């Protein structure tokens, strides 16, 4: 009896996942707990382990989006596949017996020197698993430096023993893995070839030449300073034909025909292509969908930061002494926002089908920039937190974000977001809503500007603030008033104390 594997519940509010990648092919024999696929939700990517050992039967293809609870594949237990058909299992067994032999030698793979000024790298993805059979020069991992991502080829043929885990940072020369060197060809090659669809096999065998330019194409590309990796070959098996090379000049979106008069540039014009990380793809997909699926617009205001800055300079030492954490602007903004959200519950609500979900609590998502991309961890029940609790929570979440350790739970379920482009020097921006939320507050840099107070021009530290909101649920009156309330409380923090 085949075991049906369903999309697991991966977190509240996640109703569907996308199959990013099947790591095993239809018909492959899989072991229990072996990772067979990579799934993506709108929050994060995760791996799908096999629930049993046996022969994999894929039902939903890579790229398909599948609701939680639906069947994505079946696993036929070994017993069924092997026992009644000894003929089928025999070749596999004998192939294994004739397979590679260990030589006893162990190759230690260390981080290569990848470029001047690069002192450490991070293992971004293991493409092979611990215990896998790897071939010489086969790419086994993707490694990231602060400059670029590159592929790590196996330095020997044999069994991979992973030392450095994914996400781990190593300095140049650090031990990445060991390969127990073996001689001979990998056993699974033969069964794979005759077991599965010949079409797939042929496609695979053609791919070794993908990106190989024909002699004329090679000359043309070199003269244009385009590397073959940047060209998609239209020839058999992805080979680059002369036509591909001639057309490679045409930049996507550029008006190519009009260009020949322009003299050829003389400097280096190297381009680099990297696969989008799963996180980046998720961000990209979601941002576009927000733009498409909401009626988003932005209202602006300016905040005189002098009162808050005065409080900070007056109390920051005492605050730090008492709570062990610095007094930043985020706590003021979070508190002001929480108070304003109480007054304008629409801004704190979400649309769910035909209904509006109002939240009587304020879970504020804070946008944090990490080396891997933007993440938005959530500070829960901000309305009940004290200033120091907010500040320590911000630091905790930001640190976890930077280390790539945030859990899905920590990033799920915010009711409103705050993003601070000011840390990078932004004067003004229109942030994009973090769905299913209805609004987001954008903070910006604080600049001394001439402003008029009581008929006099004075210099004040000013921050522009922006509120992007979903006009489907929040009207202009509410959104503008909300932002004005935030402004009032920040310019007169006493109001925060009194709730007026």
């Amino acid at each position: 009896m085949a075991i049906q594997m369903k999309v697991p519940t991966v977190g509240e509010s996640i109703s569907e996942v996308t199959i990013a990648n099947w790591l095993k092919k239809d018909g492959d024999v899989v072991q229990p707990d072996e990772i067979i696929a990579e799934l993506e939700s709108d929050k994060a990517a995760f791996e799908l382990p096999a629930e049993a050992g046996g022969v994999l039967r894929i039902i939903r293809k890579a790229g398909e989006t599948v609701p939680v609870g639906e069947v994505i594949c079946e696993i036929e237990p070994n017993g069924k596949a092997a026992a009644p058909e000894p003929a089928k299992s025999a070749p596999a067994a004998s192939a294994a017996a004739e397979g590679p032999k260990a030589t006893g030698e162990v190759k230690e793979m260390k981080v290569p020197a990848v470029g001047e000024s690069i002192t450490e790298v991070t293992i971004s993805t293991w493409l092979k698993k611990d215990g896998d059979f790897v071939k010489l020069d086969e790419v086994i991992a993707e490694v990231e430096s602060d400059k670029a991502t590159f592929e790590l080829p196996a330095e020997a043929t044999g069994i991979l023993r992973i030392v450095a885990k994914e996400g781990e940072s190593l300095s140049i020369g650090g031990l990445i893995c060991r390969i127990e060197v073996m001689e001979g060809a990998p056993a699974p090659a033969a069964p794979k070839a005759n077991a599965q669809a010949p079409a797939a096999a042929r496609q695979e065998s053609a791919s070794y030449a993908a990106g190989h330019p024909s002699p004329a194409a090679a000359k043309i590309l070199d003269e244009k300073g385009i590397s073959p990796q940047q060209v998609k070959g239209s020839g058999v098996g992805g080979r680059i034909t002369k036509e591909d090379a001639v057309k490679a000049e045409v930049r996507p979106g550029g008006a190519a025909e009009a260009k020949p008069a322009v003299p050829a540039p003389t400097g280096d014009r190297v381009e680099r292509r990297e696969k989008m990380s799963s996180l980046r793809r998720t961000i990209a997909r979601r941002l576009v969908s927000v733009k498409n699926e909401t009626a988003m617009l932005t209202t602006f205001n300016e905040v005189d930061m002098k009162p808050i800055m005065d409080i900070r300079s007056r109390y920051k030492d005492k605050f730090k002494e008492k709570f062990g954490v610095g007094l930043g602007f985020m706590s003021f903004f979070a508190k002001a926002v929480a108070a304003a959200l109480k007054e304008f519950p629409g801004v704190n609500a979400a649309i769910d089908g035909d209904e509006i979900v109002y939240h009587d609590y304020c879970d504020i998502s804070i946008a944090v920039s990490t080396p891997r991309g933007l993440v938005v961890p959530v500070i829960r029940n901000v309305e009940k937190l004290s200033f120091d609790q907010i500040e320590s929570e911000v630091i905790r979440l930001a640190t976890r974000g930077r280390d790539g350790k945030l859990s899905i739970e920590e990033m799920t379920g915010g009711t409103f977001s705050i993003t601070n482009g000011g840390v990078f020097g932004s004067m003004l921006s229109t942030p994009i809503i973090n769905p299913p939320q209805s609004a987001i507050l954008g903070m910006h840099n604080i600049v001394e500007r001439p402003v008029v107070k009581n008929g006099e021009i004075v210099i004040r530290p000013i921050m522009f603030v922006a509120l992007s909101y979903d006009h489907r649920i929040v009207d202009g009156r509410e959104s503008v008033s909300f932002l004005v309330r935030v402004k009032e409380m920040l310019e007169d923090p006493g109001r925060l104390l009194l709730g007026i």
Partner: protein
Amino acid sequence: MQYNVTVIGSGPGGYVAAIRCAQLGFKTAIIEKYDTLGGTCLNVGCIPSKALLDSTEHYYNAKTHFSTHGIDIPEPNVNFGQMIKRRGEVVKANVDGIAFLMKKNKIDVHHGVGSFVDKNTIRVTDKEGKESTITTENVIIATGSKPTPLPFAPFDKKRIISSTEALVLKEIPKHLIVIGGGVIGMELGSVYARIGSKVTVVEFLDSLIPTMDGTMGKELLKVARKLGIECHLGHKVTALENKGKEVVLKAESKDGKVLELKGDYCLVSIGRRPYTEGLGLEKIGIETERGQIKVDDHLRTSVPNIYAIGDVVRGAMLAHKAEEEGVMVAEQLAGQKPHINYLLIPGVVYTWPEVASVGYTEEQLKSSGRAYKTGSFPYKALGRARASMDTDGLVKVLADKETDEILGVHIIGARAADMIAAAVTAMEFRASAEDVARMSHAHPTYMEAVREACLAATANRPIHL
């Protein structure tokens, strides 16, 4: 400056470089020491040897195969004088053709020995000793190579001869001794074996045509023996002497056995060495290494405006390799970025059957540890070969064990020299053995053997075996 580019030497490297330069709009000159253009290849190499190879092959067929074909003729005679004369006519037609091409492309031909005065000035001294001077922005050195003599027995050009003399002999040798079982030795050995000479080949290594795939050497040994050529492999020549009416050769096998041979001529074909005499390289600081001019990947010498191509630089001494390099330098000078894939320059031996090969040899793949598979197909099983009675030989295809990409093609058999071009095409496009096997090959043709060998390499499933 008078010229944008001046080419020294008018062999296949030099004259092709000159034509390509002219095509690209450069004012071009070419300097040639001899009276006729074309260099070794056209005058005393490829072309005349092929003329004699074809003449003698016709004679050999008339004598040995015609009756089987049903053609009864009286015993044919060799008119050696006519063979040599025709060979001369073939050469003349070719070198005249080059002279025409120079004129057509408006390339100035300067006859005489070119010698550097400085990096932009070349003095040309003609036969009468008259000197003239050329100024030029760029120079391409294409002075080629000369046969290497034995250190203890220089060429006397009478009995101890090089390929040059072997192509203009006055008589058919009774016993031609050939030192060196490489391309030149086997070709010229075949010429004389076919028209009645006793031919004995002495080779230092353990195989004929030792730089090619081992299977080719083995098969060539079989067909050479069929032709009556005696081959002594693994023999080191220790002495060679012209005794006036005969030459006496002494050689030693690895186990110390002494071989003594007496013949009327001895062809020394142990290789060729780069020829740079009289160029005055040292005067302008062009570096050499064991006689070869040192060049970088762009064929540039240690003097930036001077390039060198063909036999005077590293790589195989082949006319078509020199041609590719000539084109490459010319195009580089025009700012283009051409490529040469040196692995895919084919090698050919014009014995009959011919030997031709491209890519890696099985020996190279073994020593590099690459996992490969082989597929072979014999001419014997080929309808076309049976029809023409050319059943000697085989095609051997080497392919990557995992990807099935063709890594080497080695052919010994009728028309191998022309067939190898198809293998070069396939390999330039990185075809797999199965790719070639799935392309339609006309029937009946010799190329079917290549397809069958590819089928054999793919999954050991040739149709006609």
